[in-house]
């Protein structure tokens, strides 16, 4: 063995430690970027400095600080902080779902909305608006969550019959999505007035304006649990690269693993969509960009996707608040506007375009 290593320059050089240090650096750096981004994003558009933000947070945490004027305090603590946190959580969740589904379906165009869960959420939101429960803050969110879970249930019932083959997942997801999209249009056109159509359209394009601490807590818990589950399936997600038989021969219980991953991504998507609406493009592009940074192995890809997705949505949301101020553009519009050129850039760098 020793002789072979001497004869073999590549083994002798052993590039692994260098590689690992580089990875640690990338992870540490991206976490720093995330924290700094969130801190900056809290400031943007509030008209408050670091001192005020510190006082608002300190006051809540029971620290001996001079309290802020009530309005400013409420603006920072009740509106801005949860909004930035929610942007980070939703961005992270969508990017992770995209990365997982791209591997499970072996389709690089897969995104979290592929499964039709978001269309179910839209239908739920529309029903709530049309029935006039939208006034209460939890109305649209609650309706969207129920709609998403109904769509997810239908997806699972259909997949139970057809099995969990990758192309079946894509086809069934599209069918479920189309069904709920049709239902949404039907309800909206048959009984919606101009106001509710406008409210629903805004929600469909995604908006973080209604972010509250309840959504933040729910999203944080679900994202933490979901990320852990899919991260523990990293080796299986890598193994799917060469198809079902090879994955199975590597010791992956393909059926069970696929079921676990589908359930987890559906719940993550449902919670994210219910909280902020269907923010497009994050789940599609972020994983591709992150693969470019850290490679395709899911042990690194999944946590890095979460961080980069978080940074991306925090900044996109900050931009929506300032670019056309005082008008707020739905964040989904901006993710696409920024995402499309980024996506093209990544594809070109990877030599795929």
């Amino acid at each position, binding site marked *: 063995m020793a002789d072979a290593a001497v004869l073999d320059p590549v083994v002798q050089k052993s590039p692994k430690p260098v590689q690992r240090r580089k990875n640690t650096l990338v992870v540490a750096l991206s976490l720093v970027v995330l924290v700094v981004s969130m801190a900056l994003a809290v400031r943007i558009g509030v008209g408050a400095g670091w001192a005020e933000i510190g006082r608002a947070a300190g006051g809540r945490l029971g620290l001996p600080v001079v309290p802020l004027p009530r309005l400013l305090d409420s603006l920072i603590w009740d509106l801005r902080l949860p909004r930035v946190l929610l942007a980070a959580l939703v961005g992270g969740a969508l990017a992770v779902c995209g990365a997982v589904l791209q591997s499970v379906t072996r389709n690089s165009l897969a995104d979290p909305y592929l499964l039709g869960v978001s269309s179910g959420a839209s239908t739920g939101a529309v029903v709530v608006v049309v029935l006039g429960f939208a006034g209460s803050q939890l109305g649209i969110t609650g309706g969207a969550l129920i709609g998403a879970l109904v769509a997810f249930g239908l997806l699972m019932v259909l997949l139970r019959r057809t099995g969990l083959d990758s192309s079946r997942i894509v086809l069934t997801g599209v069918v479920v999505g189309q069904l709920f999209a049709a239902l949404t249009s039907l309800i909206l056109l048959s009984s919606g007035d101009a106001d509710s159509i406008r409210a629903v359209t805004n929600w469909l394009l995604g908006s973080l304006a209604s972010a509250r601490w309840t959504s933040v807590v729910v999203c944080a818990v679900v994202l933490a649990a979901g990320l852990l589950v899919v991260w523990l399936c990293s080796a299986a997600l*890598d193994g799917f690269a060469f*198809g079902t038989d090879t994955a199975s021969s*590597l010791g992956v219980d393909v059926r069970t693993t696929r079921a676990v991953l589908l359930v987890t991504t559906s719940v993550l998507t449902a919670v994210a969509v219910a909280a902020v609406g269907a923010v497009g493009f994050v789940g599609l592009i972020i994983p591709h960009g992150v693969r470019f940074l850290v490679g395709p192995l899911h042990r690194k890809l999944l946590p890095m996707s979460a961080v980069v997705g978080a940074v991306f949505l925090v900044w996109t949301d900050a931009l929506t608040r300032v670019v056309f101020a005082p008008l707020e553009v739905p964040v989904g519009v901006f993710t696409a506007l920024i995402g499309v050129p980024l996506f093209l850039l990544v594809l070109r760098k990877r030599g795929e375009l």
Partner: protein
Amino acid sequence: MRIDVEDLSWGVPGKTIVRNVSLAVEPGQTVGLIGPNGSGKSSLLRCVAGLRTPTGGRVLYDGAGIGSWSARDRARKLAFVEQTADTESDLRVAEVVMLGRTPHRSRWRGPDAADHEIVAAALRRLDLTALADRPWKQLSGGERQRTHLARALAQRTAGLLLDEPTNHLDVRHQLELMELAGSTPQTVVVALHDLALAARYCDRLVLMHRGEVVADGRAVDVLTAPLLREVFDVEAEIGRDDLGHLAVGYREPVRR
């Protein structure tokens, strides 16, 4: 590992593809599965690899059935290389070979030093060390096939099941690969199209036709003109080349 195939059948609804096959493979033996396209070689191999559940009969590994094994248990005992397994992913050669360590690794930890050592050894064995950092998409068909074999070796199993592994390889790598299959202490079952190659490196040949085993034994007994005519529809002459290896010369296909 000893592999006993007992009266095994497998098929899809409406069509039986493998019919009542029995086969005993001694530990360390290299058995070549030969037969025309559609004769059931690949399906039999997948049943033996535990990737398909037989519709009848069973496979025993050192006397034990696969029933109680998890996918992970199975993958620690049996490695399988498909005929063509491609990917759109940007995996590099060493990363693909590292996939072979999947059944041995904890979910919580990444590959450790021992895993890296085993991968390096498998790369050396398949002459791939210089390509370790090469992306999959830049590999030739033969390099891909060798990468898959290195991945299967890194799995460190007692049984190795190969579905036409020499398909994309040039002559030199065909010989090297078969030499490896013949000399490894693992129990190897390999489906092959090249009859002379099969004869030269396998301890035993199993000839399949329409899902059934029609001959099983030493190459000289299996590769006979009447059998080849019956199974492959070709007129063939069996002889020996200057080196003493069995050689198969084909005339023309049998007209019917």
